């Protein structure tokens, strides 16, 4: 059987990749070690969050699936940073860990052109540095034109609890024993990473009266960028907040030598992410802090596990018992699952290009944790891009490369392949220099066109989108046309709204530039007739209110784009360029950037090296 595309691994990256390529008409095979375990959430029970929520919106705008299923299976929705500016608002859903994977499996099974297969991939068929298919554990060979690896944490995975080390994937799943060695033998540089997950506590053993309730939002939000859906906000399941106690800190400090990470063990080589340190790490590094925040989050309405966010640890089980029981409300808590750390292999992401095709083996794409990232959303964002680009390549089309000013996904991939990473990479708003234009609210405006162009978005949805865009334009024009005249009654209204009086006529457009005036004010006071959707009003309002800042960012982005347009031929030999600093030469050789803009972002490559490079290119390729 010869497939167009084989996707290895059915986590969040694999599912998006397989769905994208199948939807693009490619005969796709999705191989997973356990078919009943696709798209699981082995760590936190939520989708989205700061910056990550915007990635989910972007996936949806491109025609992906994660957001739809998160909407469907949400136990609670919360718009983070709603008290801050629109640029940093981000949606998070607490999702049901039982229904989310179920819904995904259903989606996969219903997808045309997509075949699911249970099996453990242990090798690739490689000839002349080109991948021709996969080899399963039982030596079955399956051929394809493209292979996408989304192996998550399964490459040589080790579970660490206290001093115990067990070769195992998450939740006792079987790890892939040989694939990473094979990848190394094909020339990949392998990276060892580590991540951890906290305890799961039996809901019935928690005294919730000692916790602070954290409910969901009272306004409805969706990841779906196509249409807004209302739901019953009162039916949401709450989270709970508690704090560590002095007793907790004492137990941890007394037992520090038993912690896998602090016990002086030298067999742990994996680099853990700084943004999710273990509780012992937090207590050692931030001695002055009297207490640390912990969230108790629901995992599912179908079983009783509660996720203890903030309490990840590599302590042995007996110490974990003591630690958990020192927490308010958890004095008699039953631990259903102990906290553990997991070590796994990944590849240095500078070995892949911005299309996510590897530089080492042709027709091989990688996405998700194998590329050094962390998080469901980061994985899914890469997955859809890998699926799209493998398919586009089969159609002999240019790959879809999202720019840093177009999407968080663009920032994510550019960072990975340009700067590389040595710890699991998590998306943060601080990584996006153009975050002002990479918003939750405009994800569809930014990316729907791409989704349509590659074929993931169908005509009817695209027409709806075009109508929305036209409505925004129409509304903006209307706001410019409607003038408020300086009548006594109008000025009285302005006074009532705490806004300065006017002497000359002013358009509603200019009026909206005032902080105190919103579209809602205009609608409530019948200055504007209500004839558009909320999303249209929202876009118009943000466009007007932030015009100054947005223009500034756009100008900066333009500067960057000029450098992005300057292509570097991929056959360039950096060894032949005289005067390059040797560090720059090494980095350029390693990353082999496709544009001058990308070269500029490589750490260790200085502007002087770029000048030399540009002069070399001009001489060599123009003369």
């Amino acid at each position, binding site marked *: 059987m010869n497939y167009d595309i084989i996707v290895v691994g059915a986590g969040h990256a694999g599912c998006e990749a397989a769905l994208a390529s199948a939807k693009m008409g490619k005969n796709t095979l999705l191989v997973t070690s356990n078919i009943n375990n696709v798209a699981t959430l082995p*760590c*936190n029970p939520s989708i989205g969050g*700061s*910056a990550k929520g915007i990635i989910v919106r972007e996936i949806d705008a491109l025609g992906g699936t994660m957001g739809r299923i998160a909407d469907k299976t949400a136990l609670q929705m919360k718009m*983070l*940073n709603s008290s*801050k*500016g629109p*640029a*940093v608002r981000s949606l998070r859903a607490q999702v049901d860990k039982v229904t989310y994977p179920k819904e995904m499996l259903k989606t996969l099974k219903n997808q045309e052109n997509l075949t699911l297969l249970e099996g453990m991939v242990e090798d690739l068929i490689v000839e002349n540095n080109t991948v021709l298919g996969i080899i399963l554990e039982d030596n079955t060979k399956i051929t394809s034109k493209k292979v996408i690896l989304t192996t998550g944490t399964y490459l040589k995975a080790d579970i660490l609890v206290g001093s115990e080390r067990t070769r195992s994937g998450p939740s006792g799943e079987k790890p892939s024993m040989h694939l990473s060695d094979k990848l190394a033998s094909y020339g990949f540089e392998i990276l060892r990473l580590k991540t*951890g*997950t*906290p305890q799961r506590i039996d809901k019935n053993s928690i005294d919730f009266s000692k916790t602070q309730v*954290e409910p969901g939002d009272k306004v409805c939000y969706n990841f779906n960028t196509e249409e807004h859906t209302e739901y019953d906000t009162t039916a949401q399941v709450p989270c709970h*907040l508690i704090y560590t106690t002095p007793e907790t800190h004492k137990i941890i400090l007394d037992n520090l030598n038993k912690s896998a990470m602090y016990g002086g063990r030298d067999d742990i080589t994996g680099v853990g992410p*700084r*943004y*999710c*340190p*273990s509780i012992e790490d*937090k207590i050692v*590094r*931030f001695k002055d*802090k009297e*207490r*640390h*925040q912990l*969230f108790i989050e629901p995992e599912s309405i179908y079983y009783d596990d509660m996720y203890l*966010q*903030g309490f*990840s640890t590599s302590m042995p089980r007996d110490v974990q018992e003591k630690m958990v029981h020192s927490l308010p409300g958890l004095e008699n808590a039953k631990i259903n699952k102990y906290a553990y750390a997991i070590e796994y292999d990944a590849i240095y992401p500078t070995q892949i290009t911005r299309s996510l095709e590897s530089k080492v083996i042709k027709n091989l794409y990688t996405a998700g944790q194998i590329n050094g990232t962390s998080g469901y959303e980061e994985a899914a964002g890469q997955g859809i891009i890998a699926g799209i680009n493998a398919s586009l390549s089969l159609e002999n089309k240019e790959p879809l490369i999202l720019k840093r000013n177009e999407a968080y996904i663009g920032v994510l991939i550019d960072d990975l392949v340009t*700067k590389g990473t040595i710890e699991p990479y998590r998306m*943060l*708003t*601080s*990584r996006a*220099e153009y975050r*002002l234009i990479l918003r939750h609210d405009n994800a569809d405006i930014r990316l729907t066109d791409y989704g349509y162009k590659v074929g993931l978005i169908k005509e009817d949805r695209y027409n709806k989108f075009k109508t929305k865009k036209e409505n925004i334009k129409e509304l903006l024009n209307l706001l410019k046309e409607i003038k408020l005249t300086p009548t006594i009654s109008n000025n009285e209204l302005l006074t009532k709204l705490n806004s300065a009086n006017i002497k000359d006529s002013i358009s509603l457009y200019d009026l909206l530039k005032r*902080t105190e005036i919103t579209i809602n004010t205009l609608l409530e006071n019948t200055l504007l007739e209500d004839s558009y959707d909320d999303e249209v009003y929202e876009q118009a309002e943000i466009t007007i209110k*932030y015009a100054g*800042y947005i223009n500034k960012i756009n100008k900066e982005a333009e500067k960057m784009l000029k450098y992005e347009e300057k292509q570097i031929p991929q056959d360039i030999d950096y060894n032949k360029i*005289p*005067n390059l600093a040797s560090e720059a030469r090494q980095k350029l050789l390693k990353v082999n950037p496709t544009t001058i803009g990308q070269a500029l972002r490589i*750490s260790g490559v*200085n*502007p*002087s090296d*770029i*000048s*030399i490079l540009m*002069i*070399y290119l001009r*001489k060599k390729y123009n003369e």
Partner: protein
Amino acid sequence: MEDTIAAISTALGVGAISVIRISGDKSLEIINKIFDKDLSNAKSHTIHYGHIIDNSEIIDEVLVSVMLSPKTFTKENIIEINCHGGINTTNKVLELVLSNGARLAEPGEFTKRAFLNGRIDLTQADGIMNLIEAKTDISRKMSINQLNGEASNNIKKIRKKLVDIVSNIEVNIDYPEYEDIEVVTSEKIYPLVLNIKEELEKIIKKSEDGKIINEGIKIGIIGRPNVGKSSLLNTLLEEEKAIVTDIEGTTRDIVEGKIIINGFVCNIIDTAGIRETDNIVEKIGVNKSYDIITSSDLIIMILNNNERITEEELELLSMIKKKNHIIVINKIDLENKLNLYVEDAIKISIKDNTGIEDIKTRISEIFNLDKITTDDMSYLSNARSISLLKQALYKIKESLANIENNTWVDIIELDLKECWNILGEIIGETYTDELIDEIFSRFCLGK
């Protein structure tokens, strides 16, 4: 034949030694005029100890390197004078070199010659020129050298304050539910940002003083024809016995000369007059005045006591409002017809030689010349650093305005971050990764 060019090749302001490089055919001829040894027969690539002499007065004790064509950087004869006497002495030696036949080199001109004479290829030349133009290591290092010590430390301190605010805001954004991290609000950061603004203003002030020490004060004289501009210039110059140069190509349009006030060099430039006319030539004169106004540190505008004020003069007055300026009313020996009261105007009569000293005193007051001490070398700085400092200040002012306008804190933060980046550029540190490191090292986050 090419001019012989000269410039101070080392960073001004620091270090015990400054090197003046002279390149061109006349290099040997010039050094022989001002050095107390005859180097006419000196061998190439030799160093000679001696003194720089001006009319038999010893200016500095120096080492002179002789490098003869063609084995030099520019392939021309090169003389390098290693001065030991600090900034003012070095400046004086350079002036001597210039007054004995060399022309001041333009930025990058030595490199340009090296290229033109085939010493380096275009790649290298271009590379080096780009280095100079772009925000490069070299220019970065230059400014680091120029701005070391206290100034650099102060900038680091300001950056620390900024990163405290910025990383706290970013953590608030990325970890919105961590209540035990202080939530930064506009009200909370207002005094902090205000303090940063004041600190920056202080550094800029001191750096500008440093610029005065380095480069002198550029003073433009403007006013209508026959109001007494040239006379004032000549009077000032005569007293100081400075040299008047007619700049080629602009003959009689602009005349400039140097005087010393309280030990500081003032470059005075006289512009063409402003007259009510449509004549193109005169228009150019107005444009030049405008150029002078924008490029000068101080404007002296002369009005005629014996004439009514004109539209053009009023326009010029409004143009210089925001700059350092002195309004001088000349011809007070004649009848008062000037129908304009200017507070602080200095009344003079060049004819009677009255009031001239007042102008000098005022210049000294405006720049606090008597208070600038040359031993505070830490603030010596180049124009690039000052312009970056001003950009940083601008960002801070923007963020203050945003705070006052109740803008979202995440938008205010963008200007603060930009300010932090610009300051980093001055001291040669700009990595956004640095910020992320800061966030993780300072805050306690995670699952």
